[in-house]
């Protein structure tokens, strides 16, 4: 960066952030105006220290780019073990979107601390000025989940449901792996946790959402969405379709049928994309709220479009689409997720089975197994089970 750019960056920071710009003080509530915390006073989780690391500001054309690398330590000040946490991340001046950071699969006992990192970039016109917001980035507690599946927080992002699903998946994985260890099924354990080891980095997927008026596309064709059925699921997909053109999927819809008499509040529909090289990716999930109990079947539609690419941005040609029910929340608040038996019975394809069983906890335990072997995994399962 030239001297002029440095001067402009410094001037911008001086004007927008005041004398505290660039501060790395440990007090989370008073000093840093790059970033502020909004945790209620009675929150069972509170920030205890904070650092901005190598955060910088640069001039990029007529805009200013802030490169934030924040790390903070949170403490469980409540009386119950903490299992997961979601924090909202907003840049109020931008008003174009918001984000969140979730830390699932935690086992933090009362009084213990744990670290959280937040790396982000904010690009804003130099001329934009401040809009009276206390900081450029605000971090707020959205939901904290405890080991008894009770939760605390405003839950504006509906993160409680996902934290419960992550926790149930974590318990399922821990029990399954503990069983494999107990039965000394080493080959199965290797298959489970070493899966994809030759590919040191996971297959990456690029996504782009398009909402709003969409123009017509050439070569668009109707695609059937194949259902993946879990036998024990209270709601099952029975079919669906979408318009697919190259790497773009438009207007997907899935028909669902309720298989249980229990009242269902919501569910999460997962879907899988197969590319033209027959590689399959879990493309994502769509939360669905079911309002009418009496309806036994429902059609889920989305008017938007999504474009797929590989990790380096090269368009991915869509070969096939599949849908499955990832989880179901009943009206009494209880949550169903597929068991290991459900997943094993759903498909004979080991790659697809692995994708269906893939969870944050499985990812975490796989890393421990690869780094520390069977002994390390056994110790971790003993600590968390």
């Amino acid at each position, binding site marked *: 960066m030239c001297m002029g750019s440095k001067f402009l960056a410094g001037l911008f920071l001086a004007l927008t952030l005041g004398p505290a710009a660039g501060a790395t003080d440990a007090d989370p509530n008073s000093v840093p105006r790059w970033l502020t915390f909004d945790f209620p006073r009675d929150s069972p989780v509170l920030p205890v220290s904070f650092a901005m690391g190598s955060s910088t500001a640069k001039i990029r054309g007529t*805009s200013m780019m802030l490169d934030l690398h924040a790390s903070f330590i949170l403490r469980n000040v409540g009386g119950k073990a903490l299992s997961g946490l979601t924090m909202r991340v907003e*840049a109020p001046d*931008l*008003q*174009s*979107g*918001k*984000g969140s*950071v979730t*830390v*699932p*699969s935690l086992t933090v006992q009362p009084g213990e601390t*744990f*670290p959280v*990192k*937040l*790396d*982000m*970039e*904010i*690009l*804003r*016109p130099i001329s*934009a000025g401040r809009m009276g917001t206390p900081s450029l980035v605000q971090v707020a507690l959205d939901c904290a989940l405890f080991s008894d599946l009770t939760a605390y927080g405003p839950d504006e*992002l509906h993160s409680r449901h996902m934290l419960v699903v992550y926790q149930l998946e974590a318990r399922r994985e821990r029990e399954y792996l503990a069983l494999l260890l107990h039965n000394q099924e080493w080959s199965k354990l290797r298959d489970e946790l070493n899966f994809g080891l030759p590919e040191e*980095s*996971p297959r*990456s*997927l*690029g*996504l*782009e*959402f*398009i*909402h*709003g*008026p969409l123009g017509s596309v*050439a*070569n668009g064709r109707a695609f059937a969405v194949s259902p993946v059925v879990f036998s024990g699921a209270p709601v099952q997909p029975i079919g669906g379709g979408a318009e697919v*053109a*190259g*790497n*773009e999927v438009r207007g997907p819809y899935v028909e669902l049928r309720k298989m249980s008499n229990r009242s269902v509040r919501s569910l999460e529909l997962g879907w899988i994309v197969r590319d033209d090289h027959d590689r399959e*990716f*879990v*493309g*994502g*999930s*769509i*939360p669905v709220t079911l309002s009418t109990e009496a309806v036994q079947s429902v059609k889920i539609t989305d008017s938007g479009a*999504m474009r797929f690419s590989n*990790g380096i*941005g090269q*368009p991915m040609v869509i070969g096939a689409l599949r849908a499955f029910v990832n989880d179901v929340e009943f009206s009494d608040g209880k949550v169903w997720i597929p068991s290991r038996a459900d997943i094993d019975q759903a498909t004979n394809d080991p790659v697809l089975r692995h994708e269906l069983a*893939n969870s*944050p906890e499985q*990812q*975490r335990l796989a890393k*421990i197994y690869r*780094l520390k072997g069977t002994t390390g995994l056994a110790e971790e399962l003993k600590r968390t089970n």
Partner: protein
Amino acid sequence: MTGHPSSELLALYGSADLPLLERWRIRRHLSRCEHCERQFSIFRASTVELKRLSANETLTGFEAIADWSRLEREMEGNIVVGLDASRCIEKKRGSRGLLLKCAAAAGMGSLFVLGWATHIPGEQSVRIFTALRGAFGGRHANEYQGPILRSVPDGIVVGSPESSMTILHPSTAVVSASGTAGVEARYVDESGQVTITDVYGQ
């Protein structure tokens, strides 16, 4: 003066390059010494002849000494000629460099077109050209102009080209869609803890 002056002194006397006292002593000796007088006459005649012959010729070493102002003009002329010549060479080199640059640009252009044709699907090309047309010549009414939400190799971006927020993640993160307006990245950090970042469009 006890003896005859040397040839060098006579030559210098002839070109009026001796100090006043030395010149007086030489003149006094020449008035009394026929031998030296003859010697000096030969020097002077030679100098006159050389000057006459070189009036339209290149300067000689002797003349260079005898006529500094002319030498100066000659040197200036040579410098001007040299500079002109170097300018001509520069122009030649410049035009050759321009040709090389044009050839390199044409090669890169051909490679780009070939790469585009073999890697970018037709509908993507149409979309890109449409976007470029929109940027330079106005947008169509039905084109999407809202905030962009997309994943890049090291993060998830929401916003516009001028104003955006990106939550960064390692390139090893598993990226997927989160609902109908969100993108999620999941990774295990260096401390062994799973972190999930989500970015939502408004």
